[in-house]
């Protein structure tokens, strides 16, 4: 720590930190634009200026940028003096010369950092009498709008996009007062994390098109602290509603997980919530085979009878349904009849993940990933399957550079200086995958067949420690010794794997590598990414995946079985059932073969608990009251339980968690994942709406002048109104972030224990697992790599996740089915580019156009995971060229679409 003087006041601040960060951490207000807590300082905007005095005698001092000035013992500054504050006022005055005065029609208005900082500097009067600079906006794709006139040229966007997220197609063009931030030509912003520009840009240049389509100001939104259900990472989001529709997803800061950034699947993939395919009524299939909407009461009483009379009832849960829903289903059908609905491979991977979590092997948080200095990725396609993790790994790759900088006396927050010094130096990130990976640019890529990836992993573990078994085959394409040596010499080695290639053997290999490393270095970390947002939670409740019984009644909760099981056998299974009941939010293949469907809520309108990859239980709160006949699955299931005389002691959500914790002591933490319904903050509940949303109760005044009662929330401690607290509420309950003078998300500064650190009072969620179980050495699967072509799942961030894949904007970014292989493999199958393959066994599935890519390993048929291709993974049978196939019309070039 260092003692510094600021306006006569003695302050204790961390030595070597920049002054801006130090002062913000102390809760002081100092305006800034170009500095970002995760992207450091460059000194562009000059907004954070203060005066520094050389010594006690110095009366004049000189202007310095607080973000560029390291604090040191005895340094003397003035923030408040006229010289400093006048300078900062001038900066805003000059920024405003060309900034349009369009706040009333600007989407950033009301949560704009530029507005906040302008007010903070006190600048008011306009002295400029000339024309403003104007620009032409670009079409940037279905996610992000562009309003360049609002730009204040702070360079945050390019620094974020290029330097932080590794994107290539957004740049600063031209110079002087004509600098333009955009693409070289109109077109979709390619980077998977582009959406963060919406929050990184301090003004309204980059806007969220999915919000623009039905725009609402922050103050008029009803929001809740939700968990993204796009993958297994469990990023924290704010889900916001108006008029019964979800309007947007914003980042919700979490010090251990997403920090300030989300992936675009999480940010823009929510549109299915408002989709036409949402199930809004209970439906019963009539004798005509068509569904008929039915009153919930009628359906429930029918089910009470059929379940009561059934010889057997199987319950199939899902990795995307909440713990509460899965647990109540288990209570309803009994533990022996409860199934996870995961594929065998995924279930095995989940078991592996649980084993690792319970052992002494460390599972780093996403923030801890950023500290890794050597990373080994085995098989997992992070960017497409667990996207936010890829962004953290990209930061880890920068550690070698930061280390160099440190040796040269350059502090890590001197962002431009660190990057100039380091140039292309990266910490090693070994990327062993089957197809091209988005981390290849900073990594050391090797393309291998999944079986060979597993073998490489086992061989690395064996090289690290010969107590770990060697595989029978060791792939020759890769320098096992070099990888082992790099991992051994690392301070914070990290192994990353997951279920994207669908290979438990790869995961086991990764476990061995991490365990072998851990014997050398306790800091070694392992991340296993399951597929669903609650894969681990569900797998804690059962080992079984799918009933092997026939007949009876089956209840499927939030699961499209066609994702994981072959269509033909599902149809066979269904035909032998007396009744198939599904609870889900969106229509899908399983719904369409069910006898009864019941409308379930989504993450946006229902509350539930999810367990992420690191075993963190997190509560996701619904932002708004669901439609009249819609209810969270757990509520439907609780009713079904009660109707069967079961679980009578459970009345509320909190009771479900208590019962769950009692039955599974390991899950005790779920109760504390967030405060329960009885929680009161200073005697009050916590509000979902902002204190400025007072017009809310008059929202329907055009229909009736009677102010409706705001609905009550009996299940949580949140209100469906602006009544209640916000600023003092625990992080897990906070629906939006706001502090006096700080209307944008950057107000989060005020709620962190240190800048970019943990949220005060702790980051939300409870890590469930201890580390006391002994790690069992894993053995390689028998058998050598197949020498005939096999289908390899290829994940796509947009399209592979089933729910988000239904949203309009995501559909626009999703690929069409294809199959990719090298020409050797194509030769074996007698196909060539421009032709297509189809399966002799599969009817009603699209033929797959062939893409030849010589980088693909032999015998790998890389096929995207899409609703249309599921069958290819389960039972492709014989693949043959499809003689009748014609190339489809080229897809619409969205580049020509200029709609906003």
């Amino acid at each position, binding site marked *: 720590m260092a003692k510094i003087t600021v306006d006569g006041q003695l302050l204790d601040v961390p030595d070597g930190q920049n002054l801006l960060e130090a002062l913000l951490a102390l809760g002081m207000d100092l305006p800034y634009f170009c500095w970002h807590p995760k992207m450091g300082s460059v000194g562009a905007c000059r907004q954070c200026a203060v005066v520094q005095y050389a010594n006690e005698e110095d009366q004049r001092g*000189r202007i310095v940028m607080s973000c560029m000035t390291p604090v040191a013992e005895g340094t003397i500054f003035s923030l408040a003096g006229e010289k400093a504050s006048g300078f900062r006022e*001038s900066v805003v005055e000059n920024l405003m010369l060309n900034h349009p005065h369009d706040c009333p029609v600007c989407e950033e208005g009301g949560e704009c950092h530029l507005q906040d900082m302008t007010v903070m500097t006190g600048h008011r009067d306009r002295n400029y009498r000339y024309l403003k600079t104007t620009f032409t906006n670009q079409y940037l794709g279905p996610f992000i709008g562009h309003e360049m006139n609002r730009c204040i040229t702070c360079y945050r966007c390019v620094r974020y996009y290029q330097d932080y997220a590794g994107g290539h197609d957004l740049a600063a063009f031209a110079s002087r007062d004509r600098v333009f931030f955009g693409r070289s030509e109109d077109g979709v912003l390619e980077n998977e994390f582009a959406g963060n520009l919406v929050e990184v840009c301090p003004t309204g240049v980059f806007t969220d098109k999915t919000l623009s389509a039905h725009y609402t100001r922050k103050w008029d939104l009803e929001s809740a602290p939700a968990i993204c259900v796009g993958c297994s990472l469990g990023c924290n989001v704010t889900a916001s509603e108006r008029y019964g529709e979800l309007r947007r997803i914003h980042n919700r800061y979490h010090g251990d997980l997403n920090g300030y950034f989300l992936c675009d699947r999480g940010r823009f993939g929510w549109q299915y919530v408002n989709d036409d395919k949402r199930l809004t009524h209970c439906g019963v299939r009539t004798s005509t085979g068509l569904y008929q909407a039915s009153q919930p009461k009628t359906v429930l009483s029918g089910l009470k009878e059929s379940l009561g009379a059934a010889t057997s009832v199987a319950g199939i849960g899902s990795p995307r349904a909440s713990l509460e829903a899965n647990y109540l289903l288990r209570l309803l059908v009994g533990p022996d009849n409860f199934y996870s609905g995961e594929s065998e491979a995924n279930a095995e991977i989940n078991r592996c993940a649980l084993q690792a979590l319970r052992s002494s092997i460390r599972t780093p948080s996403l923030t801890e990933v950023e500290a890794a200095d050597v990373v080994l990725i085995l098989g997992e396609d992070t960017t497409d399957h667990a996207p936010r993790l890829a962004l953290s790994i990209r930061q880890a790759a920068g550690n070698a550079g930061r280390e160099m900088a440190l040796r040269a006396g350059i502090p890590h927050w001197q962002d431009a200086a660190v990057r100039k010094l380091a140039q292309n130096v990266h910490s090693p990130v070994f990327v062993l995958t089957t197809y091209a990976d988005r981390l290849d640019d900073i990594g050391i890529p090797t393309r291998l067949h999944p079986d060979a990836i597993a073998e490489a992993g086992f061989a690395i573990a064996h090289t690290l420690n010969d107590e770990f078994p060697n595989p029978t085959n060791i792939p020759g394409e890769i320098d096992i010794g070099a990888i082992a040596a790099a991992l051994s010499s690392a301070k914070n080695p990290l192994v990353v794997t997951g279920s994207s290639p669908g290979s438990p053997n790869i995961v086991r290999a990764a476990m061995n590598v991490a365990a072998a490393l851990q014997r050398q270095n306790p800091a070694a970390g392992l991340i296993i990414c399951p597929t669903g947002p609650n894969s681990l939670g569900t797998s804690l409740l059962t080992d079984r995946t799918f009933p092997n019984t026939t007949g009876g009644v089956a209840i499927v909760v939030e699961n499209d079985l066609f994702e994981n099981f072959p269509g033909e056998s599902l149809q066979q299974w269904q035909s032998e059932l007396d009744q198939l009941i599904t609870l889900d939010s969106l229509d899908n293949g399983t719904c369409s073969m069910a006898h009864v469907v019941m409308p379930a809520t989504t993450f946006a309108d229902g509350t539930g608990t999810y367990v992420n990859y690191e075993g963190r239980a997190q509560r996701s709160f619904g932002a708004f009251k669901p439609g009249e006949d819609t209810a969270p699955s757990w509520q439907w299931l609780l009713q079904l339980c009660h109707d069967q005389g079961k679980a009578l002691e459970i009345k509320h959500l909190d009771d479900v968690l208590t019962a769950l914790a009692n039955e599974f002591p390991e899950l005790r933490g779920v109760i504390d994942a967030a405060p329960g319904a009885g929680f009161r903050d200073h005697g009050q509940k916590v509000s979902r709406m902002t204190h400025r949303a007072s017009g809310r109760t008059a929202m329907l005044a055009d229909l009736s002048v009677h102010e409706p009662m705001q609905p009550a929330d009996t299940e949580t401690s949140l209100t469906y109104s602006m009544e209640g607290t916000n600023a003092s509420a625990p992080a897990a309950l906070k629906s939006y972030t706001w502090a006096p003078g700080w209307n944008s998300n950057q107000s989060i500064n005020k709620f962190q224990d240190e800048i970019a650190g943990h949220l005060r009072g702790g980051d939300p969620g409870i890590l469930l697992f201890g580390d006391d179980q002994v790690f069992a050495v894993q053995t390689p699967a028998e058998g050598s790599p197949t020498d005939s072509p096999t289908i390899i799942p290829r994940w796509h961030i947009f399209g592979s996740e089933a729910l988000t894949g239904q949203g309009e904007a995501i559909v626009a970014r999703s690929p069409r089915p294809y199959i990719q292989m090298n020409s050797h493999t194509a030769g074996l199958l007698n196909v060539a580019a421009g032709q297509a393959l189809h399966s002799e066994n599969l009817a009603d599935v699209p033929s797959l156009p062939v893409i030849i890519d010589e980088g693909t390993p032999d015998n790998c048929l890389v096929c995207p995971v899409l609703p249309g291709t599921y069958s290819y993974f389960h039972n492709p049978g014989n693949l043959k060229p499809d003689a009748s196939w014609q190339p489809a019309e080229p897809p619409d070039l969205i580049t020509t679409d200029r709609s906003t």
Partner: protein
Amino acid sequence: MDRPLTKNIGPGKAPTDLTAYVANEGYEAVRATLGKLSCADVLDLVKDSNLRGRGGAGFPTGMKWSFVPMGETEGHKYLVCNADEMEPGTFKDRLILEYDPHQLIEGMILSAYTINADIGYIFIRAEYHVAAKRLKEAIEEARQAGLLGQNILGSGYNFELFVHSSAGRYICGEETALLNSLEGKRATPRAKPPFPQVSGLWGRPTIVNNVETLCNITHIVAHGADWFKGLGIGDDAGTKLFGASGRVRNPGCWELPMGTPIREILEEYAGGMQPGYELKGFLPGGASTDFLVPEHLDLPMDYDAIMKAGSRMGTGTMIILDDRTCPVAMVRNLEMFFARESCGFCTPCREGLPWIFQILDDIEEGRGQPGDLELLTRQGNFIGAIGNTHCAHAPGAIEPLASAMKYFEADFNRHIEEKACPYDH
């Protein structure tokens, strides 16, 4: 030998090729140094010589070099010659580049040897294509003669030299923007520290020096520090290429001792004002230096003397303002240039200079308003101090404006009061 820099250059003299250059003691310093003197010896010589940078800032060259890490270092070190010379009114480096390219090459070999750099770049102004061609030819000649490349003259020392033509922006002359530009990045200056000596081109130790600075090295090595110091007749060492442009009888560039009085340069070498014109003021060292006025004519052209008078010696090439040219129009013209050449990185310069230009344009065109001068002063103070902006471009831009407002205040006021430019043009 009191005109070392221009000994091969003069009216009517052809550009020197290798033969001509060698015939006049060329490359003797290299022969006497490589493998014979240690890096530290040469560095001491340069330090002792009191040579100060000729690119504008006048930083002591030996001291600058002493920050380069020496001894066993992995990887390259670079020597970069700043031949961007885009400062309005400045045309001194061009003379050497076009007429005596080997002088620069020899200076660079010796300088690179001193800091143990193995790669050199000459970053040359886009418009200097004749110079670029002659430099490339000279480099090829030197390479053929074993003076560049691997194991130069059998000394074991390696040095490769390349010419890189700028794409044409004034800011590329700022040494760190220059480095970014060389790397193929946007030409925005870098924050200092770290200084290029530690983290320069591609993150490696790098020295950037002006053409004239580097040329001096040859002569210092050949004739010694004392000889060099003796060349100056005032406080500073060596000779300097001084120049004058504007309505003088004989605009041009001359090598003269450091400390030569301004009056001597103007009256003896530039031939005094053209008939019918009187001296009203002058920018002593290029467009980005403060105006001085006739009362300063007896000052010596020494860094500190000019600094004390409130200006900078800059590049030593003067721009003369006569009594029939409107100072407001002249400053407007300069600010148009500086506003246009802003790299756009930091707010005061990017937004503030265009505003200043717009106000000056109004004043000059008779649209000035009461309060405009206060606004100009406020903006000038906001932009003008070193440290307020990310690099020295903006403070440089304010120097002629602020000083013009001081010395020619009446002219500004008349424009506003009379709603027209009082000058006849």
